[in-house]
């Protein structure tokens, strides 16, 4: 499908402003060079947003000269702040220069880039920041034990955009103990890798594309929206609404949805787990995607099959997550997408953790920006995970900060601890009062998903009632309910259907535990089995690691989010890589599967308990159907 984009910057320049904004060329030029320079200067001048022009010096000196290239790249221009001078590479005027680099578009972009530096340096106060700046000026540096992070950031602010916390968050810069760092080391999909060279180069690089590349609005829609807001520009971009999310491990690993089918975004919190690393829970986001046949609305919350869960997480090549490596940034950080059911299964069932969905009260513009930012992050974030500082929660905080929320609210929500962000959100203006507590959420079956422990407890209570004795845990059930006790229970299920299903559920747990133990024992005792399984796991882990991040399959032919064609190509590459892996390791995978199947087949329930429960259920079902 051909993607099209049309960007119209409705710049209205008052005549007096136009006449007061002047470029003075200091270099002696031939008439032909002069004509070309005048034309470019005029076009750039006219393209600048009005709000920007108001804040720039009235006169710029323009100089053309030979600017030596660095080891890595050609240098196209230099901003000499003190002299209000922009130096441009004279090759832009030379008919013999490399036409690919020194063409008219790059001429305009180079000038826009240097003008952006001037605008940035002017530290123009955004109207929305003024009340906060005033507030912070009258505030002590320290509030209690901690400095007010927002006030500190505003006091340090010395640029118009480059150190605007909202832009920094959106552009992927974060403050750390060692300075400002880029979260992602992936530069392939930047308009120019130079954007990643320093925080103050990101804005000029993005701005030159914003101004002169119609596709920018579709390739980097979240940044485009930020610029539109900042400059008060109305922008009409006809971008394709299709989004392709990569869902590793699913039968169809790419899910393409229309962005306008995303009804809401929830903060999705997995409650505290037993393991050390999960004692504060896990932060995720849920895209409440509507089913194809549903008109977008609140009922989309029922379309669980369509929801997509997003999670900033670390990956390991061998499943071996070490604490030291986790703390020191040895694991890659990406934004993973999963199905709702996969996440529910993992947390509710395998880890016995509750899941809470907290709907974010966003304006349409905020929601749109957040969707775009998440999508771009999904395809372009490949950074380093730090357990304490750059993790699932810090990244969601960063996304919120870049969404255009009131800055004081966004800063209040900054956190690196999942349970803390959950608590902060519940007491924030971003959450509706009807769902602003755990207890309120727990009453809403579309927003709260209890762990399987609840089902286990229900089954245990039914068994306890029937047995006339307390069976408090599954371990007690397995230990105490011997064959004789089981016979008695089963007899009672004749007249108690609820008990029948309770026994079925508990017996299935007993069986699965026994089978898992049998598999483990086999692995431990049999060296050849162990070797096969370990090799299979190593292959699986490496395969999953290599396929964790879809951006690795993109080229740098374009920047930002992929076009539909690109996403389609990546889907093809991933599919063929999976097939190749499968072919390469066919024998190994087959052996591992055979071991597992062998365990299943050789497992014999000594008392045939499950068979008996199953037959009773089947006979009841048949009698119901008849």
């Amino acid at each position: 499908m051909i993607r099209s984009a049309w960007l119209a910057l409705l710049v209205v320049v008052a005549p007096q402003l136009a006449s007061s904004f002047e470029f003075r060329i200091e270099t002696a030029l031939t008439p032909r060079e002069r004509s070309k320079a005048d034309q470019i200067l005029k076009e750039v001048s006219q393209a600048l947003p009005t709000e920007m022009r108001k804040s720039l010096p009235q006169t710029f000196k323009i100089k053309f000269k030979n600017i030596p290239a660095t080891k890595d790249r050609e240098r196209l221009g230099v901003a000499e702040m003190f002299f209000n001078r922009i130096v441009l590479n004279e090759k832009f005027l030379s008919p013999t220069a490399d036409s690919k680099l020194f063409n008219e578009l790059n001429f305009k972009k180079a000038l826009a880039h240097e003008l952006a530096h001037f605008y940035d340096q002017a530290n123009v106060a955004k109207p929305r920041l003024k009340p906060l700046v005033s507030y912070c000026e009258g505030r002590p540096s320290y509030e209690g034990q901690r400095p007010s992070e927002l006030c500190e950031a505003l006091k340090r602010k010395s640029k118009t955009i480059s150190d605007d916390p909202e832009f920094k968050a959106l552009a992927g810069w974060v403050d750390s103990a060692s300075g400002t760092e880029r979260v992602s080391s992936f530069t392939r999909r930047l308009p120019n890798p130079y954007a990643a060279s320093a925080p103050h180069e990101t804005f000029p690089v993005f701005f030159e594309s914003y101004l002169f590349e119609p596709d920018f609005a579709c390739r980097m829609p979240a940044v485009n929206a930020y610029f539109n807001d900042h400059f008060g520009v109305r922008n009409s971009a006809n971008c394709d609404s299709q989004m392709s999310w990569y869902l590793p491990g699913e039968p169809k690993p790419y899910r393409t949805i229309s962005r306008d089918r995303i009804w809401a975004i929830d903060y999705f919190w997995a409650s505290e787990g037993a393991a050390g690393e999960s004692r504060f829970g896990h932060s995720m986001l849920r895209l409440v995607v509507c089913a194809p046949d549903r008109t977008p609305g609140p009922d989309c919350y029922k379309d669980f099959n369509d929801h997509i869960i997003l999670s900033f997480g670390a990956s390991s090549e061998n499943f071996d997550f070490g604490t030291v490596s986790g703390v020191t940034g040895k694991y890659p950080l990406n934004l993973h997408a999963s199905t709702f059911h996969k996440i529910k299964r993992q947390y509710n069932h395998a880890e016995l953790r509750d899941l809470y969905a907290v709907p974010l009260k966003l304006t349409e513009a905020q929601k749109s920006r957040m969707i775009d930012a998440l999508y771009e992050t999904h395809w372009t974030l490949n950074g380093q995970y730090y357990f304490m500082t750059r993790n699932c929660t810090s990244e969601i905080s960063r996304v919120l900060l870049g969404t255009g929320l009131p800055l004081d609210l966004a800063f209040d929500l900054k956190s690196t601890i999942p349970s803390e962000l959950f608590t902060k959100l519940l007491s924030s203006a971003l959450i509706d009062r009807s769902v602003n507590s755990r207890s309120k959420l727990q009453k809403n079956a579309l927003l709260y998903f209890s762990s399987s422990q609840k089902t286990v407890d229900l089954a245990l209570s039914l068994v306890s009632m029937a047995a006339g004795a307390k069976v408090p845990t599954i371990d007690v059930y397995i230990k105490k309910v011997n064959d004789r006790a089981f016979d008695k229970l089963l007899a009672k299920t004749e007249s108690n259907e609820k008990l029948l299903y309770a026994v079925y559920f508990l017996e299935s747990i007993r069986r699965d535990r026994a089978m898992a133990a049998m598999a483990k024992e086999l692995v431990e005792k049999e060296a050849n089995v162990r070797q096969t399984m370990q090799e299979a796991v190593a292959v699986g882990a490496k395969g999953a690691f290599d396929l964790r991040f879809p951006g690795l399959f993109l080229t740098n032919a374009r920047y930002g989010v992929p076009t539909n064609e690109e996403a389609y190509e990546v889907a093809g590459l991933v599919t063929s890589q999976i097939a190749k892996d499968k072919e390469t390791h066919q024998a190994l995978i087959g052996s591992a599967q055979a071991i597992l199947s062998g365990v299943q087949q050789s497992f014999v329930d000594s008392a045939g308990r499950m068979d008996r429960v199953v037959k009773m259920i089947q006979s009841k079902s048949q009698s119901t159907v008849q």
Partner: protein
Amino acid sequence: MKMKSLVLTAATLTALAAPQAKACSDVDLIVGLYMVMTITSAPTGTTILAAAECRDEMLNVQEAAVAYRMSGEMSPVLQSSIDAVQKEQNLSAETIIDRLVNAKLGAE
């Protein structure tokens, strides 16, 4: 519209028709194998081996169906799957729940 709905309910319908059908990639299958190796007994222990076959939707719905049979309370997750199946097949909710539970039993 029909095709989209079919895709939507594919997992559930597949499970109804063929309980042991695999629905995931080999990579995930091996991740499942890894779980079996490393977890002697999950907290509940249920369906670890089945989980290795990646039928997340099916397993979630089946558990919800069993919970429904025990409590009489229909969870939205179960209701959602029933609604999806009913768009394709003229079956009562109780029949679908029976089949869901029996699909698992058939895999014994």
